[in-house]
């Protein structure tokens, strides 16, 4: 045995011979064709990987003397997508079967074609699941027999070239395992292109498919392929459906030259972010950039008893931002603890919603509010929704024009400010939340004024800081005036 050498021995794992393929099977020959083409290409073969799924063709990854990855059933295209994007220097070839790629893996295949993922996919189509004993699949021709369609297949198979061209694959070709020369030629063409390149090889499976369809040997199938196929220039993929009594159309169905995903990614991203080439070793060199000054925490934060603040309003009133500014002010600038959470749910959009902030000098364990100490309400709908949570001792901050509190329990202090009206006077209704923030700041002392203003500046869009501070100031002054009147 040892003196018998494989003609493509440099690229085939001779220590794994004999291979598992049945006599007459087309897969081994196709592996040889690809191996020969790779050797002819003159490229650095260390940079080629083969990824396979499960099935007879799925074993291909184990016979190429390349980095080979034998993955899970249907997933080699997804796996290969990860490998190629993580390491763009690689040439990643997916070599797998029709059941693996088009049936269980159909979703990955169509999406890889759609995104024009930079992969070469070799799809061996032998019309059935050979490894498991010859069951039908998504490519079994109508009326032919397999172990799970013994009366003849009543389904219509995929027209694979049509599927791939429709999904946007850059390069789509079909040959049969009897067309060694064309397979190699197509592979060379694929190597010269980028994006998603797909080569379907209609392949002989005499043991499991041919035997049940009156073609018992490999020779029978090769004869069938040679008699039945028509090789055309620019064939129309619409005509590529495989039926037993019509010609099997072969050729190059698509050769588009669209940019591959990696190029598209770089073209979109590089004007916006400076993307350096991904090195793939997890050790990216990040050039030094000018450090933005990190805010300083107050060294001896002032003592604050735990205070639970619930904020309610309608979508668009900036209730979430209001809570977030309070949290940032407390945590980043005051050096105290704060937990912020939002009533969360896609279905909550549109109606009244709330967020909560808990402020304390101590670590906060339970992060939610059952009975708020302070409630800030910007809309009557929110008042209705959260009224039951208002308990004696609660302090209420409301928009004077938009909230009319009724039936409040005893001992609830209400502070009202026409926040929305004042925001309109400042120039824009959207800053009503910021007017409210200023108002609350004047009447409470659990967040320092400097902290709130610093947090406000970092939380609003660049260029609107002055405008927001003006709104804040208006609310603050309104609160100060109220405080004086009260005392």
């Amino acid at each position, binding site marked *: 045995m040892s003196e018998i050498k494989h003609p493509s021995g440099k690229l085939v794992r001779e220590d794994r011979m004999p291979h598992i393929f049945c006599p007459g099977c087309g897969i081994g020959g196709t592996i040889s064709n690809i191996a020969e083409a790779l050797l002819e290409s003159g490229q650095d073969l260390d940079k080629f990987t083969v990824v396979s799924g499960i099935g007879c063709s799925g074993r291909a990854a184990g016979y190429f003397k390349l980095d080979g990855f034998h993955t899970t059933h249907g997933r080699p295209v997804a796996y290969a997508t990860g490998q190629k994007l993580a390491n763009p220097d690689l040439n990643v070839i997916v070599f797998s079967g029709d059941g693996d790629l088009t049936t269980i893996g159909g979703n990955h295949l169509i999406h890889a074609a759609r995104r024009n993922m930079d992969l070469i996919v070799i799809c061996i189509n032998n019309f059935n699941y050979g490894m498991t004993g010859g069951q039908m699949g998504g490519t079994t021709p109508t009326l032919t027999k397999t172990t799970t369609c013994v009366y003849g297949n009543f389904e219509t198979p995929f027209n694979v070239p049509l599927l791939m061209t429709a999904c946007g694959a850059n390069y789509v070709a079909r040959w049969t395992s009897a067309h060694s020369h064309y397979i190699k030629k197509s592979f060379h063409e694929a190597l010269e292109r980028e994006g998603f390149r797909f080569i379907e090889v209609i392949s002989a499976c005499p043991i499991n498919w041919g035997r049940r369809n009156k073609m018992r040997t490999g020779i029978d199938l090769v004869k069938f392929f040679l008699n039945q196929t028509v090789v055309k220039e620019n064939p129309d993929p619409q005509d590529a459906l495989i039926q037993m009594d019509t010609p099997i159309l072969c050729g190059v169905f698509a050769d588009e030259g669209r940019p591959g995903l990696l190029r598209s990614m770089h073209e979109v991203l590089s004007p916006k972010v400076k993307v350096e080439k991904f090195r793939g070793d997890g050790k990216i060199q990040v050039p030094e950039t000018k450090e933005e000054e990190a805010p300083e925490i107050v060294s001896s934060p002032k003592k604050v008893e735990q205070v639970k603040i619930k904020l309610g309003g309608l979508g668009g009133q900036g209730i979430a931002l209001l809570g977030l500014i309070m949290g940032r002010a407390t945590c980043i600038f005051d050096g105290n603890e704060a937990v912020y959470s939002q009533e969360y749910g896609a279905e909550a959009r549109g109606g009244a919603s709330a967020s909560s902030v808990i402020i304390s000098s101590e670590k*906060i364990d339970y992060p939610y509010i059952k009975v708020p100490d302070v409630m800030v309400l910007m809309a009557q709908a929110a008042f209705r929704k959260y009224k039951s949570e208002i308990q004696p001792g609660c302090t209420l901050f409301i928009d004077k024009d938009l909230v009319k509190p009724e039936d409040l329990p005893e001992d609830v202090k209400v502070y009202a400010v026409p926040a929305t009206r004042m925001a309109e006077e400042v120039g824009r209704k959207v800053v009503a939340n910021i007017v409210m923030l200023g108002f609350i700041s004047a009447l409470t002392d659990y967040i320092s004024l400097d902290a709130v203003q610093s947090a406000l500046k970092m939380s609003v869009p660049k260029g609107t800081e002055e405008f927001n501070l003006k709104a804040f100031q208006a609310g603050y002054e309104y609160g100060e005036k109220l405080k004086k009147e009260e005392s």
Partner: protein
Amino acid sequence: MGKDVLTGVHFMSGNHACAEGAIAAGCRYYAGYPITPSNEIAERMSWRLPQVGGIYIQMEDEIASMAAIVGASWGGAKSMTATSGPGFSLMQENLGLAVMTEAPCVIVDVQRGAPSTGLPTLVAQADVMQARWGSHGDYATISISPSSPQECFDFMIKAFNLAETWRVPVVMLSDESIAHLSERVVIPEKKEIKTVFRKVATGPKEGFLPFKVGDDLVPEMPIAGSGYRVHVTGLTHDERGYPDLSHRMHEQLVPRLVNKIKQNAEKIIEYEEFMIDDAEVVLITFGVSTRICRAVVKRARMDGLKLGMLRLITVWPFPEKRVIELSNQVKALVTVEINLGQLALEVERVVKGRCETYLIPNAGGEVHDPEMVYARVKEIAQNS
């Protein structure tokens, strides 16, 4: 080029902190599929990764996402995905591939109410057993669980370091509550962050055995394209990586994959103890429930009740040794978790009746009410 470590003080949600922790840990590849309540991780990664030369790709489903991160891992990147229960179910197949081919990667599972679509926007901790046994066959991986946004940041670094050290998928068991709470997150200087990269194969290429191991049972990893020309398969394989579908080989490979975690468990396991020295009753918990249990312990101590807490940082492997020690010391161990009893099974298994064991369950949708837990704990303390 943007900064990879955003040194400074932030007010950040758990999900955003997970993303920043991953980037600080050196993650440069993210593949995922949108699912509530994990989306803010993907959103932030799609924004941040390009800034640091990394790749974000949104795949067609979670099966593809998991396959892609295993592929990226063998491609040489530190890779991750994030999901929630239904997506985590879909990932189990290729999580098994990561186990079998020893591909380091991190999966964040932001737990939500289940089974099925359940409560998409509300908290649960019911994927404990799925994190341990979700894929088919015998295997051992690592799961860690944060209880605050700060821990989301810190534990993502831990998760990547564990994945890279032991060459296993690591599950970050987050939950909807932690994911959406915002708190102070302090990100240290880059030089203070310790990151680990897998042992990379550097030896001679001729005759290289990609699955040969030393005492730590972890093989050197040849990065795809580095010239080793290895074969990697999800089939049972020998040291060469070649399929060997025999009982003999399976008896070598699978125990080795389990033992690399089991045998090194003491190096991997971390937990936190609170008021445990004189405790007569100890709460066992993890993740967001830690916060509730800490509040309950503080409250109990004010009343003179000797309550303590063992909080698991590493949920898997389970800290058997410590739980056995405690079972010899205390009257009762009480598991508090947002499910109907998953970790509690593990506690019972390990304790073997040495002390009383109880469960305070919660089907999910909200965290435990501390007052309810305290009332139940008082009852338990009186009866044991």
